[in-house]
């Protein structure tokens, strides 16, 4: 589904990504690579196939849009270096032409040289790309830039007749800022309550639907 935001055309993909055609930029947030291995290291049984699945979904998106830039608005890596990240480094070699930008999130704790080795261009605080500000968590100040952030893992409750209710991951577009859904499937949801004027796009199994 393609929407208009601050005069730009953005395509919302059901695989939890935004494609910005004018900049040929694929935007995702909260990839949490290495989360499952991090859990395993601490004695919690999480199948390794999860990290792989996330990368496969990312691959499919790259094949669909052929972007020049992959932008990750934070929490690309969950905690520290581990086997999942090794898997990513290998994957990186298959897409050498792709530029990867990362706006650091609260979980991104690798050393600068680790990012360098994986050819990831790091933005410590935010990345401005007119008319947008890309940042991990919502900023305290608002200015002329429209903010696109992540961090929250937003979800939306949809209510229907006869006391029916559904909870789905969503793209949230408010007045001054938008929140991206978490890309990794090994993440939970925190439910947002849209106010008048906001737009919310729920992610279903086959497509994205505007629900608010």
């Amino acid at each position: 589904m393609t929407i208009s935001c601050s005069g730009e055309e953005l395509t919302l993909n059901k695989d939890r990504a935004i494609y910005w055609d004018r900049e040929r930029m694929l935007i995702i947030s909260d990839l949490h690579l290495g989360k499952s291995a991090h859990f395993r290291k601490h004695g919690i049984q999480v199948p390794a196939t999860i990290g792989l699945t996330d990368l496969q979904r990312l691959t499919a998106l790259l094949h669909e849009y052929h972007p020049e830039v992959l932008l990750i608005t934070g929490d690309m890596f969950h905690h520290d270096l581990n086997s999942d990240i090794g898997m990513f480094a290998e994957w990186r070699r298959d897409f050498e032409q792709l530029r990867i930008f990362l706006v650091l999130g609260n979980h991104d704790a690798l050393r600068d040289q680790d990012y360098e080795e994986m050819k990831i261009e790091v933005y410590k605080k935010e990345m401005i790309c007119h008319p947008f500000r890309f940042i991990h968590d919502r900023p305290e100040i608002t200015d002329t830039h429209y903010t696109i952030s992540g961090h929250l893992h937003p979800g939306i409750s949809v209510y229907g007749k006869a006391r029916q209710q559904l909870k789905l991951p969503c793209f949230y577009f408010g007045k001054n800022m938008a929140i991206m859904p978490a890309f990794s499937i090994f993440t939970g949801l925190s439910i947002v309550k849209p106010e008048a004027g906001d737009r919310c796009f729920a992610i279903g199994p086959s497509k994205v639907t505007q629900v608010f």
Partner: protein
Amino acid sequence: MKLTPLRTSASYSKQPYEIETKELTINNTSKIDALMGIETSKGYRQVIKWLRQKKRKPFSFQQEAWQYYAEGYSGLVNAPTGFGKTFSLFLAVVIDELNTRAEQKTEKQKTSKQKTHSKKKRSSTGLRLLWITPLRSLAKDLARAMTEVCRELELDWLVSVRNGDTPQAEKLRQKKQMPEVLIITPESIHLLLAQKNTSGQFSQLQCIVTDEWHELIGSKRGVMTELAISRIRGIIHQKHPERLLRIWGISATIGNMEQAMDVLVPYPEVLRIIIKATEEKKIVIKSILPDHIDMLPWAGHLGHKLAHKLLPIIYKSKTTLVFTNTRGQAELWYQNLLNLDENLAGQIAIHHGSIDFELRNWIEDALHSGILKAVISTSSLDLGVDFKPVDTVVQIGSPKGVARFLQRAGRSGHSPHEISTIYFLPTHALELVEAAAIKEAAKTQDIESRDPIVMAFDTLVQYMVTIAVGDGFDEQQLYHEVKETFAYHELLPSEWSWLMQFITTGGDSLSAYHEFKKVSKVDGLWKVESRQMAMRHRLHIGTIVSDPMLKVKYLGGGFIGMVEESFISKMKAGSSFTLAGKVLDFVMVKDLTVLVRRSRAKRAITPSWMGGRISLSANLGTILRKKYNETLDKSHDDEELDIILPLFERQAKVSHVPKDDEFLIELIHTKDGHHLFAYPFEGRQVHEVMAALIAYRISRNTPITFSIAMNDYGFELLSEQQLPIEETEIRQLFSPEHLAEDIVISINATEMARRKFRDIACISGLIFQGFPGKYIANKHLQSSASLFFNVFSDFDRHNLLLRQAYDEAFYQQIEEPRLLAALQRIQQSKIIIVKTDRYTPLCFPIKVDSLRENMSSEELSQRIERMTAETEKKATKKFRNKNDHQL
């Protein structure tokens, strides 16, 4: 000589019994034989002499227990509350010890007379008796009573308590030197087993007693008890194969006593016996009735409208225990009674599991001393040592089962042969019928069974890691121990090896779990090496899963209790809530503690603590259906049914009152949508599965979405579209044919298994929930059970924990035979279908229930679009906060 019965209560009955001790044995010749052995022993004579000094005599079941214990038996003691169950076993161990000492003394005198310098100070002889109790509050009083016995019999035994409330210093002291008697909870034994070098501490153990076994048997805590016993037994057997460890249980009457013993003592080579007291408890049950049926609401669970009728009962009794079913309800009733009579301030108290330990202690002491007029409580006071001054018990709302009701009744008038009085206060109109049903069930002693839990893989995973955190285990030995327990006697070698892989390599051999670390082999034993992991595991030992809890504390100091984090997260600074009967102003959350100050506000919201909903038992369901008949026929002498008659007449006018050979279906069309109400009267649990089954069968051919609600009487299917069924098809919908397959699909289609997985993920250590007061913020390891459920469903279908979730939803939830019986009964019944456009008295309590399940055969994307379209039409709608009750 005047003798009074032997009991644990601190003070004793004034009524004397004029029977000589010896007369007891004459009535029954077989008993003479049985009791011959022990009567001549030194220990027995010493105990009897001591009892005579105290003008007391043992009951015959106590003597029986002593005799069987002396002969090396294990087993179960079944006696009503107030008849000295504790002493039937504690004194058995004491007599045995006294006899052993007497023997040793004579032997010593024979062999060597020169060694007379043994006048050193008390040295521990090692742990002799492990006494497991389900509730912490029991331990203190038990220890007091046991210590007193030891002192008076000049037995130099130390009696200690170990549970979540025990201070660290005391635990360390115990580690250095074990007391002879340790009173402990199932969780604390596992914690003990999770320490290093504990195996040496059991070598002198003579007996493990599990108190209130009927409370434990139906839960995973019972499984923990079984496992702990198997381990301790294994440790002793390995070092001293010749030693005999006795395993005893104490239980109130339940429907499956024989099985209860099999579960506790599953060992074929052990001598076993059930000792049943012939003494009976007399119970008087009275209902608190409204003057007119209109005084009671059609639905609800508070019952405040009858509160003024409770006051006279409290006034005329010495001390009243008021039982509610939830903690929130207890808080509300406390406020309500104070509002009705301000003079009660200081004379009434509130007691539940979320109230601070110190405060609970104070209340329990105050109950003993009789300074309180009434205590509002939840199941936290269900069990335990008697409070002498309590002469009246009140039950607010349906207790859902006969056994629980009788147990609560027994908390009053507990001296033997005294009468227990219990009042039933209905919270909504239909509960009057339940009151009549309970009375009948109590009269006919129609008491429920408690089915033991089997094959709980989550508890086993936790246990295996617990042992690995402690001294480690040998795979073969532990397998044999576990396999011997009742809970896991069907465990397959393949399941065991899956479990071993799960804790050592993470997953099965097909899906590699890189970098997984937990249990590894060190010097031939499986152990947890990481200190951090061991610590985290110890914090999460247990099977009671609750929401993360935060401690509540005054700004100036002093703990009040605990509330759920989800409740506090909705509070703003300055808003007030009630806890432990106090109105408090919320200030802030700091260091995982909720800081509050006393409020001037008179009213405030009451936190709702999550808790399971209890389902009506099958026994009660049958009687309930019969009572519906009797109400209409007027063929009864229950005053409750007379009162409810007008409501039944109303139901008959707008719909129909089902007789026990009829099955009522109401098809109601309102602005909410199309409802189908069905009334099997089988209890919430059966209805939950039956509703899913019927919803599935309806949705098989047409894409449709249902919202499902249920209570103990019936269930509701609600859809925004017309139900695609003909009246003639309804009997077919409830057909028992293809039941097993249809149930599997309908469980898959709902959230039932997912909900079961919440506890499983917690118990097996996949997710970390808050632990009262010991909450550790492991943000980077946070996840949710639901997430794991998805992950395993997608990536690890053979995961045994996932299978357990389905099994729990399938076998425990539904009680398949019960569901089958219900469907067969429905097939035999006359099906009555009523179509109306208004809610009826019978459907109303179901309709207002907020706990709902969804089932859909619509394609998800289409469903999203349809629901979105509906929301747009409705514009902005206010959602009520379903769990906060405004006072």
